[in-house]
């Protein structure tokens, strides 16, 4: 089957900054595809190129085999784009915004009221439809934005950080809604820097970092590929360096343990990978007891997407976020996103 979205060797620079260096992926019809990466990795730029808001320097982009570069209007008709920041006209009511959106997508005049009712019902917005959007809360704004994006029944819905800045309740509502959409046949592409969001929603994921795809696959495959379970061990709440090093040497010697590192950011806790054996925790506990070391806490977990990211880049997503936050020029990025 032809892919719903095809992106091949996409490259996009803003001045000297290579926002996207080389990104390729394909999305199959009817799946939720996630783009995971820290802020500034090139996720938004990729989406902007797909939605013809930015012109790529190089690369091929197709939506249902329609080239975005050669037939931008046709491609736009196939896409629904939900930007990260909800831009509503606060003077208009929800219904009026939908009426505008319907005209911009050239829905036949007679069907417009009916289509508006459809999306209002879909997103449970009936009671808000005739209030000005300026009075909406964040969650309602996002729902109206989604309703607007779905009005023309796009084949592919593109969402940039769909739940950023939303409360937990609204987030769950949106997640459930996106799953329903997928189950009814819409293809979804979403970006996120929330691991749990991608984990909960995406059928397949591409992890991007500094403008490159560093891993691609289903979340469970990616996690299985990085190997065994993760164990986090704290000797004390705040372990002295010497004890931590002692425990590190000791656990490293165990045959089923690999890659023991000391994490000073977490009070010298020890992070390690254990091979998939059920009794790893018990064995570590016994070994520590024999060496006379106490245990403050010990936990075992299946590898997370963060571990996938860590294995590929050598840093956690959170660290990458922090590093990016320091070096980003938000004002400049805002300018880039302005047309």
């Amino acid at each position: 089957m032809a892919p719903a979205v095809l992106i091949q060797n996409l490259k996009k620079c803003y001045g000297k900054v290579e926002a996207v260096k080389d990104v390729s992926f394909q999305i199959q019809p009817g799946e939720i595809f996630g783009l995971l990466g820290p802020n500034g990795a090139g996720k938004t730029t990729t989406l902007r190129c797909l939605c013809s808001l930015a012109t790529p320097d190089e690369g091929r982009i197709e939506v249902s085999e329609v080239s975005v570069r050669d037939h931008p209007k046709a491609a736009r008709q196939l896409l629904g784009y939900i930007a990260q920041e909800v831009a509503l006209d606060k003077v208009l009511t929800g219904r009026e915004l939908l009426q505008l959106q319907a005209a911009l997508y050239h829905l036949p005049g007679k069907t417009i009221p009916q289509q508006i009712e459809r999306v209002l019902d879909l997103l449970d917005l009936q009671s808000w439809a005739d209030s000005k959007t300026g009075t909406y809360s964040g969650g309602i704004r996002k729902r109206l934005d989604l309703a607007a994006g779905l009005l023309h029944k796009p084949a592919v819905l593109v969402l940039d950080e769909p739940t950023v800045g939303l409360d937990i309740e609204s987030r769950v509502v949106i997640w459930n809604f996106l799953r329903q959409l997928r189950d009814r046949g819409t293809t979804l592409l979403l970006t996120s820097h929330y691991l749990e969001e991608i984990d909960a929603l995406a059928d397949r994921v591409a992890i991007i970092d500094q403008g490159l795809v560093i891993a691609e696959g289903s979340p469970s495959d990616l996690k299985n590929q990085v190997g065994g379970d993760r164990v986090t061990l704290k000797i004390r709440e705040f372990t002295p360096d010497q004890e931590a090093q002692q425990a590190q040497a000791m656990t490293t010697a165990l045959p089923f343990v690999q890659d023991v590192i000391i994490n000073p950011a977490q009070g010298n806790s020890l992070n390690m990978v254990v091979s998939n054996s059920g009794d790893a925790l018990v064995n570590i506990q016994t070994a520590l007891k024999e060496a006379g070391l106490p245990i403050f806490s010990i936990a075992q977990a299946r590898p997370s997407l963060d571990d996938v990211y860590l294995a590929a880049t050598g840093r956690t997503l959170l660290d990458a976020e922090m590093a990016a936050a320091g070096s980003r020029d938000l004002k400049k990025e805002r300018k880039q996103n302005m047309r």
Partner: protein
Amino acid sequence: MTITSANPNQVAGSASQADLLTTPGIVSREFIQETLALTRRLFIQLQRRPTTLIAGIIQPLMWLVLFGALFKNVPAGLFGTSQSYGQFLSAGVIVFTAFSGALNAGLPVMFDREFGFLNRLLVAPLASRFSIVLASATFITTLSLIQTLAIMALSYGMGAGLPNALGLTIVALIVLLLVLGVTALSLGLSFALPGHIELIAVIFVTNLPLLFASTALVPLSFMPTWLQFVASLNPLSFAIEPIRYLYLHHDWSFTSVVMHAPWGQVNLGGSLVALFGFDAIALLGIQRLLYRRLS
């Protein structure tokens, strides 16, 4: 081995593909639909936030009353054939008001850019993005005509009289031509400049100097020669002088001389041609820019 020529699915597939790629252009029902919807948005905004319109009507009326009073005691005949300064001034206020309104046309578009609302329009499969420009121009023109009517009504009440019926049509045409050209320039600026601060700065440095370097407040004959040259080349003067003439003369024709510039005489028809020329230059000037930004 596959022979594709007899595959019915493929034929159906390529036909729907071709349908999909046929998109409407600027001469289409879709273009009208999107332009009307965008214009409707601007009028809903105006209806819910009428402050700008109210201010836009009060301001020129204050101009008329206050400026009119300022020069009330000048000797008769000083302002050419006008009977009073109020009568002289109303043409200037009509044109200046329309000009200021049009100059501000780019601001809402700039805010749409800054708030990301423009992206909503740009990701939509618009038949032509010219609909964004056309909607703004339609809105501003309507606004200017409403303001013009208010000014004319008040100055009539103050004894300035009115042009005759055909004259009124020409006044409307002149306002329309000026608004179109200036709106185009302002919209161009709203895409060329980085933000609303810069746009407001440009509006600020353009607005009053162009007013004072025109014949809105005083006749050419009051000015030193160098300023006469500037004022007689200012597009505002090409709108003010014919309107003023239409106010004073009901026996006008297109060959009536409306402005005695230091470089020659300008008749009514000539002013209209000049305004058409101004529009052509403005539209051509921004066309490349808009094309680059909007396609």
